[in-house]
């Protein structure tokens, strides 16, 4: 039996995650297929097949459910999804330009003061291809909808443009007013909206290109002790590279020799450089500030932190915009009403003794004027401006549907670590009966030698207080208890009270009181002592992000409830909750239960936003109505979130919701303006008074209102 092989396919036409699932199932059912995996984000399908499988049959089976797949030859370079969006935008641009090329002279002719049979017939010639070639996609969709007794935006556009066209063809013979320019304008403006939408995706792909460009262009590979400049793409795990001060780290790896501070702002949003030494991980595209580093490459190509961010952003853009649903929802009600009104108008004219021709003409006129040209611009312009402004403010909306969901948020759930706090232990208190400096010197020197983050926090705190630490003669860690070591000949013990008792060190009541008080404040407390006695108490705590307090207050002002959900122990959590002023606390929640807690809130009718950054937050981020992934960028959390807050600032969570609300209400206002002028003109049409001037006026006013209204979002702060 020969071995199965893996075929990779390029997939076209997927609009959501379910599409990927469907293709997977269909592929899995085909003969010879042992398994199939479809990745929506990278638009790729992989199938494990028996050697003599008919690949063409697989392609045909998937084609039957409406997707195109194409086997990728080994070594073939795939087009990035971002480039495809750019290509789609170009295609839409060509479409709208060609349509405009015909519509512009059509408009000009319709506005001529003197009308002749020739200009009227020319208008017909110009309008026909716009309606039936460029508009064919709308007619096709409308027919599809009609078969299932449905109407949406496409129906309205199709009915409106065809009605205006047919009415005008008939009017050519009778010499009555024609509405060819209305039919042409409807299609052209809708196509313009489609282009805007494609370009909004393209703009976000611009952001990707920017991210890609953050990567270093060259790496100094170390070969036989000599530097050799290579493209970072050529590196493989295990290679050694050298990074000089001021240079970008070319790729993900581990420091072999050297120590430096590294600017990781792009990943963590933390503006302070991070100290790194041998054994620490570094990431491509971060900036080496001080020392020469030798790095062993660990991750290359698609596995680097930067490549993963790029993939996540692309994933975000791949989601389609069901916000359009609002326009569709309105249309689905509007279309039957308009057709109903048209029938009533038709019947009324007959009833009052009008001839059949007049009745038909006025009925159709109602349909013509009812179709708002600006309808196609209402949603895309708002989304384009809103998401562009978001990117400027550091908020990436993954998919336009987030705009529709975020206005309803009434509950914010924060994961404590890293979102409200800095996630780094800082020295907060020293109690040593007047001998603080000596105490910190001895304890700090011992702690500085430990690898523990708490120890590093203590050592940093000592250095901040200008205490010069020395190297201990020896250090020994007592797991779970503390550290024992000797500095300048003094045997120092640092740790929990139990370790003090074990080592025969006496604790005074004052020190016990201090310990209890500091622990109540939610701090982590240690004792330190030598020569048979406990000499003092130190406390460390996770520091609150400066903007956290303001953010919580702002959210309360917006009428939202705030909840902190954390795995930390109740006392620590309460201390943080109190100092940021959060509304409710759910502490000691197991990682697996976070999603369940979110689901429970939703079960009580809440619309929940979850703000988190950890890998263990991913399920909760997905469960929440809107998941906001914070900062770090290296995390799977970003993949699960709907909104990415580009820096660790919790303030951005409030910004995201406000921008979401502003954009969504802009969409609603736009739809109102789009429909207003046209609907207002319906009575004129019903009365038989519709003329091309009225139609053109409604078109111009509603389009201008919509565009101007959307542009207001640019000033959102």
């Amino acid at each position: 039996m020969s071995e199965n092989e893996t075929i990779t396919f390029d997939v076209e036409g997927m609009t959501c995650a379910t599409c990927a699932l469907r293709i997977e199932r269909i592929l899995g059912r085909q003969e010879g297929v042992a398994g199939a995996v479809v990745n929506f984000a990278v638009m790729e399908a992989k199938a494990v097949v028996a050697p003599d499988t008919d690949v063409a049959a697989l392609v045909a089976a998937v084609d039957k459910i409406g997707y195109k797949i194409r086997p990728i030859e080994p070594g073939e370079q795939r087009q990035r999804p971002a480039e495809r969006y750019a290509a789609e935008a170009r295609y839409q641009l060509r479409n709208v330009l060609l349509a405009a090329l015909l519509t512009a002279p059509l408009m000009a002719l319709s506005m001529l003061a003197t009308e002749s049979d020739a200009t009227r017939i020319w208008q017909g010639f110009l309008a026909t291809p716009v309606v039936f070639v460029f508009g064919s996609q709308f007619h096709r969709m409308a027919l599809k909808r009609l078969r299932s007794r449905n109407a949406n935006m496409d129906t309205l556009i199709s009915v409106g443009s065809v009605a205006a066209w047919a009415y005008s063809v008939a009017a050519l013979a009778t010499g009555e007013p024609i509405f060819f320019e209305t039919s042409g304008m409807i299609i052209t403006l809708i196509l313009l909206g489609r282009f805007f939408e494609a370009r909004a995706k393209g703009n976000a792909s611009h952001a990707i290109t920017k991210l890609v460009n953050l990567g270093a262009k060259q790496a100094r590979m170390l070969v036989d002790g000599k530097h050799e400049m290579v493209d970072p793409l050529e590196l493989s795990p295990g290679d050694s590279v050298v990074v000089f001060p001021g240079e970008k780290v070319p790729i993900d790896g581990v420091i072999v020799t050297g120590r430096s501070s590294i600017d990781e702002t792009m990943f963590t949003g933390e503006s302070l450089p991070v100290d790194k030494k041998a054994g620490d991980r570094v990431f491509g595209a971060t900036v080496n500030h001080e020392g020469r580093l030798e790095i062993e490459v660990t991750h290359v190509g698609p596995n680097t932190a930067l490549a993963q961010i790029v993939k996540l952003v692309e994933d975000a853009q791949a989601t389609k915009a069901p916000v359009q649903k609002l326009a569709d929802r309105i249309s689905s009600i509007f279309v039957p009403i308009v057709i109903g009104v048209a029938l009533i108008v038709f019947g009324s004219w007959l009833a009052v003794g009008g001839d059949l021709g007049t009745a038909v003409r006025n009925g159709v006129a109602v349909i013509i004027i009812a179709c708002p040209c600006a309808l196609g611009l209402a949603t895309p312009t708002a989304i384009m401006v809103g998401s562009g402004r978001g990117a400027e403010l550091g908020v990436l909306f993954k998919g336009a549907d987030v705009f529709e969901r975020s206005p309803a948020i009434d509950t914010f759930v924060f994961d404590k670590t890293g979102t409200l706090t800095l996630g780094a232990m800082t020295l907060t208190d020293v109690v040593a009966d007047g001998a603080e400096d000596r105490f910190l010197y001895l304890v700090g020197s011992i702690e500085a030698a430990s690898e523990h983050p708490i120890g590093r926090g203590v050592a940093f705190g000592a250095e901040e207080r200008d205490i010069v630490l020395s190297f201990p003669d020896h250090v020994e860690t007592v797991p779970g208890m503390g550290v024992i070591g000797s500095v300048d000949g003094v045997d120092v013990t640092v740790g929990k009270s139990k370790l003090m008792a074990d080592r025969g060190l006496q604790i005074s009541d004052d020190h016990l009181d201090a310990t209890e008080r500091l622990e109540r404040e939610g701090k982590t407390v240690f004792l330190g002592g030598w020569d048979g006695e406990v000499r003092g108490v130190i406390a460390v705590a996770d520091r609150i992000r400066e903007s956290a307090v303001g953010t919580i207050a702002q959210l309360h002002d917006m009428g939202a409830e705030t909840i902190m959900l954390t795995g930390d122990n109740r006392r620590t959590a309460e201390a943080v909750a109190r100092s940021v002023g959060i509304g409710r606390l759910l502490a000691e929640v197991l990682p697996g239960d976070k999603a369940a807690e979110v689901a429970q809130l939703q079960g009580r009718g809440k619309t929940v936003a979850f703000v988190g950054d950890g890998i263990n937050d991913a399920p909760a981020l997905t469960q929440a109505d809107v998941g906001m992934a914070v900062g770090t960028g290296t995390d799977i959390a970003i993949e699960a979130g709907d909104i990415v807050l580009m820096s660790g600032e919790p303030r951005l969570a409030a910004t995201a919701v406000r921008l979401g609300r502003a954009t969504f209400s802009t969409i609603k206002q736009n739809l109102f303006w789009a429909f207003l002028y046209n609907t207002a003109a319906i009575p004129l049409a019903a009365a038989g008074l519709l003329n091309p001037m009225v139609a053109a006026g409604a078109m111009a006013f509603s389009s201008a209102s919509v565009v101007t209204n959307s542009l207001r979002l640019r000033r959102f702060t």
Partner: protein
Amino acid sequence: MTEKTFSVPDIHCGGCATSIEGALGGIDGIGSVKVDLDGQTVGVDFDESVVQIDVIVNTIEDQGYVVTS
């Protein structure tokens, strides 16, 4: 005409609606098809003497969905 609602939990977007409507729309004996995106259901009006429920379920599943009830 009989009316029956099928539960299809994978329904996710307008694309899903279009493909299910398209597939069912071409079958003799099926009147209207309504896909409810929020409820993730497919409502079908059909003539029981012409088309069996099995055929409807199979048609939806052939599109790569799972019908749960």
